[in-house]
């Protein structure tokens, strides 16, 4: 009972904060908050397949791209599309597709989820690391498709003038919903089954768990939220290009979930704030570096060098991340 009251209070407090922030914060702060909330959605769902189900995959950029493109195509009005598609005329189906904001992002999520279902058949037939490389390849393929089908995606030029329906109320609330759903999954029958697949697949099979099914559930759920996050991202940025969905995106999410602790959702939330804040703070590394009065010029990519070293060091010395695979509430529980 106490726990339910605590949860309701926490949820209400978050909602009030979201409303307050949207109406009172300046646009720079709001853009940072939006960024954090979108990455929280992506990282939370990524942690479900990587941390909770233990299936190491590298696909978020692919699913985010699918969600973003579906949402963008559904949101942009038909006459804007005709003006925008410069290389070839848009395919008739592209012109017909139209939806309101909420259905659009949900359709984006469902599309990503269906692709995840298709991918799960080849990759979960073999164990472990194949998933990693196939999903890595998948991220590249999505980009190749986006570039080579200009009638659907406007090719390398991407889509712009996407209606910016996604304000902090939408993004923040969906991030909150994602968090609640993830926590519920972890504490449900499915979550326990997923964890057993992660910890000992043979034992899980022996206990009668259909491991293929569990991995596929985790993969599809994760893909759904990544697609939704992609839709929010598209509407937030109002313009998308295939190059935005490179491996860099996946790499950022990987750092977040490793720092937070694989399998810990509250850890992921904290890590999202730290990493996104850190990215913003370390921006100076990519700009002109002036040392001892000498200008060393700009070095784009320097931040990523720092972050990859951070990732390696974390794996070598602090493999459990901030919270391990526990939730923050578990640390406040009275020891009995």
């Amino acid at each position, binding site marked *: 009972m106490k726990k339910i009251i605590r949860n309701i209070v926490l949820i209400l407090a978050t909602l009030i904060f979201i409303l307050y922030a949207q109406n009172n914060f300046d646009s720079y702060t709001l853009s940072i908050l939006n960024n954090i909330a979108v990455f929280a959605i992506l990282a939370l769902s990524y942690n479900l397949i*990587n941390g909770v189900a233990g299936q190491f995959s590298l696909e978020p950029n692919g699913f985010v791209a699918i969600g973003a493109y579906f949402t963008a195509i559904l949101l942009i009005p038909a006459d804007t599309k005709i003006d925008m598609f410069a290389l070839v005329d848009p395919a008739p189906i592209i012109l017909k597709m139209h939806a309101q904001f909420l259905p659009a992002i949900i359709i984006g999520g469902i599309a990503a989820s269906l692709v995840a279902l298709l991918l799960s058949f080849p990759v979960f037939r073999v164990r472990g690391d194949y998933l990693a490389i196939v999903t890595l390849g998948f991220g590249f393929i999505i980009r190749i498709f986006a570039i080579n089908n200009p009638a659907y995606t406007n090719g390398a030029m991407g889509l712009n003038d996407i209606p910016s329906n996604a304000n902090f109320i939408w993004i923040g609330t969906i991030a909150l919903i994602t968090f609640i759903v993830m926590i519920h999954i972890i504490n449900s029958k499915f979550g326990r089954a997923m964890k057993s697949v992660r910890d000992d697949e043979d034992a899980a099979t022996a206990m009668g768990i259909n491991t293929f099914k569990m991995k596929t559930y985790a993969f599809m759920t994760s893909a759904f939220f990544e697609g939704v996050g992609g839709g929010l991202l598209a509407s937030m940025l109002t313009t998308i290009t295939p190059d935005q969905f490179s491996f860099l995106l996946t790499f950022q999410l990987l750092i977040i979930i490793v720092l937070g602790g694989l399998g810990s959702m509250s850890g992921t939330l904290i890590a999202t704030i730290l990493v996104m804040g850190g990215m913003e703070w370390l921006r100076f590394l990519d700009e002109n570096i002036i040392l001892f009065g000498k200008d060393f010029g700009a070095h784009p990519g*320097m931040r990523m*060098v720092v972050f*990859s070293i951070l*990732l390696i060091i974390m794996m070598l010395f602090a493999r459990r991340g901030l919270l391990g695979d526990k939730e923050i509430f578990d640390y406040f529980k009275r020891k009995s």
Partner: protein
Amino acid sequence: MNLDIFLQQLVNGASLGSMYALIAIGYTMVYGVLRLINFAHGDIMMVGAFLTFFAMQSGIPFEAALIIGIAGAAIIGILTDKIAYKPLREAPKISLLITAIGISFFLENLFTVLFGSTPKAFKAPEYLTKIFHLGNIYLPISVIIIPTVTLLILAIVLWILYKTKYGMAIRALAFDIQTVKLMGIDADKIIMIVFIIGSSLAAIGGVFYAVSYPSIDPLMGIIVGLKAFAAAVLGGIGSVGGAVVGGFILGFTEIFVVAMFPELGGYKDAFAFFFLILVLLFKPTGIMGQDLERGRF
């Protein structure tokens, strides 16, 4: 397609396949001993090509520069193993994969920061790029030299694996690392040798790549590495012969599909991926592999 063009494409396919094969051998050998997809392998190839490029720029002749590139790549390979993989031998597989990605991303971005992301023109020596003609076929000499050298290297690798004591230790390691240690073999030393062989071959593959598409850039290792891995899986991961067969199949397919259906040219980087999916669906052990859980050479 007439016979001339067919033969021309056949030679091109063999040349491209050789590069995939050389890189795939490294994937397959490391997977054999560590059960790890070495994500950094494609980037080690890139390092080899870059070091060769810089050595040549400083006036060193191509042959010597190639050796510098190979040595550099081998050292990076050893360092990768010692720093990122060795401390995690007993850790869960997922940790190893994450450090491997970290190394891969580190190398890509470090080279971007140091040398910029614009492709650099790679000037191969003239005797490699000279065009000769047989009847109506016009080809650079490199497309003949590359497959020949590759087959020679394959013979050397197979000789090491099957005729030397170290090769025997490598094959033993692929079966059971614990037992091998109990037999008094220094497992870490053998793993180091595997990394030296794999990284050297990757560097050679990288230089061949640079000679054929005369430009290099810090991200060249990603897509080539991915394709080479697909080749290794296609041939049967863990099998060196399989890696070479897989590499050649992939090379021929890529060249011939693009030659016959030019409109598919934009998708040529996607073929390897479809191969990978098909193999995993219908024959996860690949053409020459036997049991994924017990890799063999």
